[in-house]
């Protein structure tokens, strides 16, 4: 996915991400140094789990919203952190050894990607490492007593305390992970923390539950099945991984396709080159500023990309383009025609409604997304691709002067903040 000028900072990492990566780096060094000093306890098990983590990293995937996940790697990390025994032999590895195995596995699994020119998202990797380490540090000290309890009394021991502790700690870890992810995201795309938490939960909960269950499963199965557990456990999670990869793939293709096809209006000479793209980027940035959640942002983006599609039904391009300066009746007709096209998909009803009402004045109380598109469209008509500060200010002034009949003042103010940031970024 491409870097988005208005929403993410161009390249580079921000302070939160840097902090996270540094913490993960230091932890890695400590883990590896400690393990090297005291020696690897139960090397066979460590290598088995390390290999599984590496395989999981190799099969990492990108979920909608540019979120990198590696479910198999994470589940294997959880399994290794939660391990009580392998085929009846107690597992005595320390938390720092868990960190070392995770780090080595992750690096090994990331190398092939690096070799073909796909550098890992360091922040995502750091988050995975930290989450696993957190669990290891909380659980490893308890593993001795829990394991004794479980293997107690002529081999039909009591596994319930161990299971309960595992479930609680894994849940705590998942919550911590969501909070970290939301903090990073809020910082990165400039959205409110509360909104980011809800977005992360919506995106992460199903996969998180699957990974957590698999991690616990792996720890328990290692008792019953010895090392056979490792390949056997991979089966349920492999199915999950395949399903999510397909889902993420179609989501990405969908967005790319709408983005690409929104350009037909430009190729046909109906609008200025880059108009749809700029309007959609500005709209999404305004939507974020106003605290919209991701599903609404996606609808907004689709609607903004396709807001001019109705012009394709016109006989010829309107002379001078269908800008803010054109005839309002004409603009309404274009909006209606566009909504008609989108309704034909049979699925994007919300998007069609936003497009249909994009020309309405405030008196008709259009949805917030339509108001955003109306304002962003007008701004782009006035400013175009220019990043000139005075021109931007003049355009904003003109939208403000409207006095709250055509343009929502709240939207215009949010836009002013977004534009201000944009101008600053491009100036720097």
């Amino acid at each position, binding site marked *: 996915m491409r870097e988005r000028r208005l929403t993410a900072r161009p390249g580079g990492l921000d302070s939160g991400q840097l902090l996270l990566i540094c913490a993960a780096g230091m932890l890695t060094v400590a883990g590896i140094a400690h393990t090297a000093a005291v020696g690897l306890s139960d090397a066979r098990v460590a290598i088995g789990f390390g290999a599984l983590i590496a395989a999981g990293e190799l099969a990492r995937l990108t979920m909608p919203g540019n979120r990198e996940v590696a479910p198999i790697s994470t589940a294997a990390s959880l399994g290794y952190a939660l391990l009580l025994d392998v*085929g*009846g032999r107690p597992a005595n590895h320390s938390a720092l050894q868990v960190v070392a195995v995770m780090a080595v596995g992750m690096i090994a699994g990331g190398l092939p990607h690096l070799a073909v020119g796909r550098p890992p998202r360091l922040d995502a990797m750091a988050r995975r490492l930290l989450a696993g380490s957190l669990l290891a540090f909380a659980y490893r000290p308890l593993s001795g007593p829990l394991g004794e309890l*479980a293997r107690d009394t002529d*081999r*039909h021991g009591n*596994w319930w305390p161990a299971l309960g502790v595992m479930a609680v700690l894994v849940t705590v870890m998942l919550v911590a992970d969501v909070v970290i992810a939301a903090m990073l995201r809020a910082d990165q795309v400039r959205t409110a923390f509360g909104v980011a938490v809800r977005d992360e939960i919506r995106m992460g909960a*199903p*996969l998180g*539950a*699957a*990974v957590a*269950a*698999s991690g*616990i*499963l792996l720890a*328990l*199965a290692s*008792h*019953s*099945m*010895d090392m*056979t557990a490792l390949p*056997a*456990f991979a*089966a*349920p*999670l*492999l*199915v*999950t991984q395949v*399903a*999510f990869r*397909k*889902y993420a*793939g*179609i*989501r*990405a*293709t*969908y967005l*790319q*396709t*709408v*983005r*690409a*096809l929104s350009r*037909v209006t430009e*190729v*046909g*000479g109906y609008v200025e080159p880059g108009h749809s793209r700029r309007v959609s980027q500005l709209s999404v940035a305004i939507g974020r500023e106003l605290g919209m959640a991701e599903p609404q942002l996606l609808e907004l983006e689709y609607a903004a990309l396709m807001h001019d*599609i109705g012009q*394709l*039904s016109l*006989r010829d391009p309107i002379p001078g383009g269908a800008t803010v300066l054109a005839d309002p009746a004409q603009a309404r007709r274009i909006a209606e025609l566009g909504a008609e*096209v989108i309704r*034909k*998909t*049979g*699925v*994007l009803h919300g998007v069609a409604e936003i497009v249909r009402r994009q020309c309405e004045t405030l008196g008709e109380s259009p949805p917030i997304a339509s108001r955003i598109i109306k304002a962003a469209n007008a701004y782009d008509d006035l400013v175009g691709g220019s990043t000139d500060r005075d021109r931007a200010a003049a355009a904003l002034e003109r939208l403000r002067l409207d006095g709250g009949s055509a343009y929502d003042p709240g939207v215009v103010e949010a836009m002013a903040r977004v534009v201000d940031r944009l101008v600053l970024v491009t100036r720097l």
Partner: protein
Amino acid sequence: MRELPWPARVYFVALVGTAGLVITRGLLSHHGLVAEDWSALLVLALLFLLCESVPTLLNVPHVAMSVSFSAALAAVVLVGPVGAALVGLAAVVSVRPGLPMVKRLFNGAQYALCGYAAGWAYESAGGRATLPEPSDFPAILVPYAAATVVFVAVNFALTAVILRLASAVHRDQVSFRATVQFLSSYVGFATFGLLIAALWSTVQSISAVLVLLPLFVARWALGHYHAEQRAYDATIAALCQAVETKDYYTRGHCTRVSAASSMIAEEIGMGTERLRAIRYAGMLHDVGKLGVPTKVLQKDGRLTEEEYAAIQLHPMRGLEIVRGIDFLDEAFAGIMHHHERHDGKGYPMGLAGSEIPEFARIIAVADAFDSMTSDRSYRKAKSIEFAVAELRKNAGTQFDPDMVCAFVKALDRHGWDMAQPVPVPLDDAAVETTVKDHDDPTTPIQVVSER
């Protein structure tokens, strides 16, 4: 029941009878089931039902895949043949709505027999029906694999027979590829049964939750995937049609080219991933046409070289638009080269023969065929026979003969939904028409040579 032919009815009765006999005999035999077995069986049967009611984890056409058999296999290991048969019998009370009693009985009896056979295979191959110990691994894998193979084979055979007898499915409706996919997913699901059985000694029924949670999440994701896929297909079709509204007569062209292209691709045996790609390539092949000025398309008579060049540019324009989409590279090549000719006189690059990408050769045939069999402003639609004759005539010069051949075969097999006759517009000024179709091989675009 009544609508079934008599052999199917006989088969049905025999099957149910055998299942009843096997279970009754097993229950009455000297080593019956103990209380512990019954509690395990109850959980496994519930699990079986739960999986049975959400059967579409993997969808192969005509065969709904179910993970339920992992519960039956777990029962094979934990309780033995009779236990597995009882778990399979639970299919009778499946909560799937609208399932007639006959089918319920058939499913129950069928799964019971599968379970019993699998249990027998497990014990014959040296497995012991009891709680597995850590020391049983990995030796247990051999009898377990035997149980899986027998379960799948019996299940497959019993189902195939009833389908054949009830003549619900014809042989060519279940493709080889689908069968292989189906069987391999069975083997994958078998692992879950082993996991459940192996964990039974530690956390009993919770093991089922731990194994199945990822699967249900996977199902959830797959459901969303299918929904998104459908939405995507509808969206791409609607957007392409929006592009086509420029010309009153070419409506629906993109969807029909897409359909014809995938018919050819299927005929020459393309894999799923490439089939998908060519479907989209066919759909999008003409999006660049919007860049051709309307006045060129509407001009009567010969075009100047410059005007013709504008038409020749459209594949490149199309490519430029769709390049940002994550398709297979072949799809891009197909869009870019769909006007190349077999003899090398096409555009934009004048490639010839096998230099032309396969996708482009396919789309070229589909494109010309639909153009000929649709109404145009300057002529009525030609018949399929005429269009096929025309394709054959131009095979080797304009078209790849192999693709023409494949298309003719596919047409014979599947038929073709012709474009609907376009009503002649009442008021000519109200609609957009063009007097040229760059896709139509019967009326090539005339170009004035300026030299």
